[in-house]
């Protein structure tokens, strides 16, 4: 049986990371002559359950599921399975009902690598301010965990501030960082758990006339990469969104035609600095 129609349920297109995956899936599908039906949950899991229901009604051959909400809901996977439609989970996987395959970046490892880099560039010394993502979400928890692992091996860096954002948004990052600088003008390192947060922090550092701060982000979205190139960000972890999109589509096609794919397909993220950012900007991995 040949796959013709693939359903793509995106968590939230307002987040660049998801949007890039979506674009990659659509681009790849167009090249392969497959129809993709995209739905956007706008971050709400209940909406997403409805949308998956609609995709099932629409009789798609496979569903690519990027779960919305704090952590992945299992209901969509169960519903699809009940209708004999294979599911490819991307970024997050429902723990109690895993999808047929799971494609994601190994966030813990990536965050640890980033932490080690920070330790190295600063010579293992400095005052660290951390801007977390939305509390309780999988990426926030994983990135916290990975970075903390690295910091445990880097005693010279002192964590002086840690504050969560609500929407992973740049404006929030700006305001939170501004407050942090107000409290402690001696901050030397900003770690934003997403590029947007890091960019906000960088802007705050600029306005606050902080020189020689190291600002690192995560995701490697276009704005983040350009900022790395211009030196605004010291480094970011580039997730291979294009690759993940292609992989998701390929897996979906394979599953639809009855082939098997590995249950876990974790992708590494690339530590990106001024030295290696160039190719990523011309073609995002």
């Amino acid at each position: 049986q040949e796959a013709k129609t693939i359903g793509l349920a995106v968590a939230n297109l307002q987040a660049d990371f998801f949007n890039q995956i979506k674009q990659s899936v659509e681009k790849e599908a167009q090249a392969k002559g497959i129809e993709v039906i995209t739905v956007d949950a706008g971050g709400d899991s209940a909406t997403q359950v409805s949308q998956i229901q609609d995709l099932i009604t629409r009789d798609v051959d496979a569903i690519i599921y990027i779960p919305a909400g704090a952590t992945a809901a299992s209901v969509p996977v169960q519903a699809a399975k009940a209708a004999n439609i294979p599911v490819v989970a991307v970024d997050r996987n429902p723990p109690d009902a895993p999808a047929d395959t799971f494609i994601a970046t190994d966030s813990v490892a990536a965050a640890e690598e980033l932490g080690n880099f920070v330790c190295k560039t600063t010579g293992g010394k400095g005052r660290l301010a951390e801007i977390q993502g939305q509390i309780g979400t999988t990426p926030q928890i994983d990135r916290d965990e990975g970075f903390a692992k690295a910091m445990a091996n880097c005693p010279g860096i002192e964590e002086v501030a840690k504050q969560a954002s609500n929407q992973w948004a740049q404006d929030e990052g700006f305001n939170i960082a501004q407050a942090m600088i107000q409290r402690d003008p001696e901050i030397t390192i900003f770690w934003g758990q997403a590029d947007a947060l890091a960019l906000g922090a960088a802007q705050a550092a600029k306005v606050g006339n902080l020189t020689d701060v190291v600002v690192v982000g995560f995701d490697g979205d276009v704005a983040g990469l350009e900022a790395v190139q211009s030196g605004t960000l010291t480094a970011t972890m580039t997730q291979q969104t294009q690759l993940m999109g292609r992989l998701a589509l390929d897996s979906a096609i394979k599953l639809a035609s009855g082939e098997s794919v590995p249950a876990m397909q974790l992708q590494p993220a690339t530590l990106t600095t001024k030295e290696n950012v160039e190719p990523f900007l011309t073609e995002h991995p």
Partner: protein
Amino acid sequence: MDFGGVAGPLIGLVLLCIGFALASEYFLSVRNALNILDQVTVLGILAIGMTMVIVIGGIDLSVGSVLALSMMMMGWLAKTAGLPLPVAMILGVATGAACGLVSGLLVTLARLPPFIATLAVMSVTRGLANILTDGRQIVGYPDWFTNLATIRHLGFFSVTVTVFVVLMVIAGVFLRYRATGRNLFAIGGNPEVARLAGIDVRRYTILTYVAAGALAGVAAVTMAARLNSSQPSAGLGIELDTIAAVVIGGASLAGGVGSVAGTLIGVLIIGVLRNGLNLVGVSPFFQMVVIGSVIALAVAFDTLGRHRK
């Protein structure tokens, strides 16, 4: 039945259905109709409460957040505090009612405009919903619980859809045929007139917000069953959808006008739109454009029609 008030939106709904039936072969089927009912259950239950609030001339921005708090409270009570799930369900609904009580008191005793009172409650309850588990969701409800939302008895209605339909009927009868229900229209028309007629405006106002809160609690239980989890981010932004549904259904934000039948149609218009656009495969961004336009059209159609009369 008297179609007076709901003829406009009803025509809109029918047109919409015809359009989608033509555009997508998957639209017109019993299964899809049941799907739509499934999908609008939460919105519909919230809209019942919102109808009453809007009829008395108020507005409730907090429904989405109250839903989230009730949902988390239920989950927390069942999972962390170890209460039996049915008890936790009841306490979840009670949580919603308590939030409604706060809104009601803010509106009547503190004399806050409903917009502000419920905006404040919205912010506070969203915070509390997150604080309860530090932003994490609660998963792993027993099967019987999720079955409430997923198993369609006799091939038709799941328990949650049944609850929705029953609540609609009760609220419809209440607003049309009970003196108490009619009094709500008097309050919305002019609270001073209502007071002079011996209606206890304060008490009714408070009770209306309590009812809306309790219904948000019921919606929360429904959604938890549907999602098989409790999420602190649930219901984000749903208040605007709910208000839109009620107003599309012919209610006036100035108060004193509205009906449950109209609201049902409003809810279905939104549900059918979302479902149909997904089935046709309209891209998400373009969906926003279409939904906004249809809302404007539906209400314009109705108000212009009414004005010409």
